[in-house]
């Protein structure tokens, strides 16, 4: 059964996505993607974190509350966290937040966790494209619609 109530996807819908990116890997990969002149969707806005272990439930929930269409968290490859296990803790947190989102009628697919290294600039561009496409198919956040009507 669909988590979200059915709603129309506007033509030319461009999702707004927040990426919580680890300073030591994903953020550096995004930097590399820029240096390599790779293109990826402009709707992805990056928030740099000292480690994805800093991710708080509220960062994600507030983003959704304010109408963001999708959020992804990008940390180091498993076993390569600068702080040993911050990325593993973040993955557990993401899993938990997904269950919370589902309970309030937001498709958990709107939240994802990725792992990549600082050298994977092309992978960063690929993740942004892939995740944005996933959100484009899901349509705008149901909360964004509600907020626009208000």
């Amino acid at each position: 059964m669909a988590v979200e109530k059915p709603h129309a996807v506007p033509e030319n819908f461009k999702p707004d996505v927040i990426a919580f990116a680890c300073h030591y890997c994903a953020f550096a990969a995004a930097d590399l993607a820029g240096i390599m002149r790779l293109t990826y969707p402009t709707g992805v806005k990056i928030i740099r974190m000292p480690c994805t272990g800093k991710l708080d439930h509220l960062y994600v929930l507030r983003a959704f509350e304010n109408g963001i269409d999708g959020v992804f968290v990008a940390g180091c490859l498993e076993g390569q966290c600068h702080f040993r296990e911050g990325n593993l803790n973040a993955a557990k947190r993401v899993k938990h937040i997904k269950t919370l989102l589902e309970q309030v009628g937001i498709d958990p697919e709107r939240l994802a966790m990725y792992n990549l290294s600082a050298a994977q600039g092309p992978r960063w561009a690929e993740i942004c494209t892939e995740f944005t496409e996933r959100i484009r198919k899901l349509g705008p956040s149901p909360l964004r619609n509600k907020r626009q009507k208000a």
Partner: protein
Amino acid sequence: MIVGKQKPISEIWDMIKDFKKIIVFGCNTCVAVCHAGGSKEAEILASLLRIKALQEGVDMTVESGACERQCEPEFIQQHLEALKAHDLVLSIGCGAGVNLLSAYTGNTPVFPGLNTEFYGAVQQAGHFIEVCGGCGNCILHLTGGICPIVRCSKSLLNGPCGGTNNGKCEINSEQDCAWCLIIERMKQLDKLEQLFAIQPPKDWSRGTYGGPREVIVEHIAADEKNSVGSTKERKS
């Protein structure tokens, strides 16, 4: 400590949906340690309820707050004015907190946002186990510090029963048999012979079976209570 578990959002929503101005109020003692009812969880729950309200098209404000201990008047006093300014207080403290808050908030109702589960200990981060039944008559000195009242599925005082199976309980094969643990512990303490003494039937009236309990500490309690004697339990 008291271990609690947050109620499902759907159950909470059914309780609160008709109220307009709500505050989710946490307690930063026991239930904060078990990640169910502290100030952080109050903020998270408030955010989820705001999202739910938006989804349902309900006009509602949900704020959050917390105090250090909801089960003591001196800790809740400073928050009362703010709490009374709401239509509903959704407490995510334990049941003791809900009871006490409710006695102080006048016309503002207090609803429970979590289920108070048990008196527990931390097995490892995020894993809590029930280790005390609050039975009012502790016998841990006889059982190697392992409580048969709650850790044995049958609360046996003279165990194990015939259902013990390679150290596991017949009720739940994942669960350690408390009496196997007790025997191993008593062996380690070189006190195994103590277990040959038959324990008489327990006076359960000193537990929750005997009605509400009360403890009065003579040298601290107000004068009106002093006449009943030192550290006297009403049901003893």
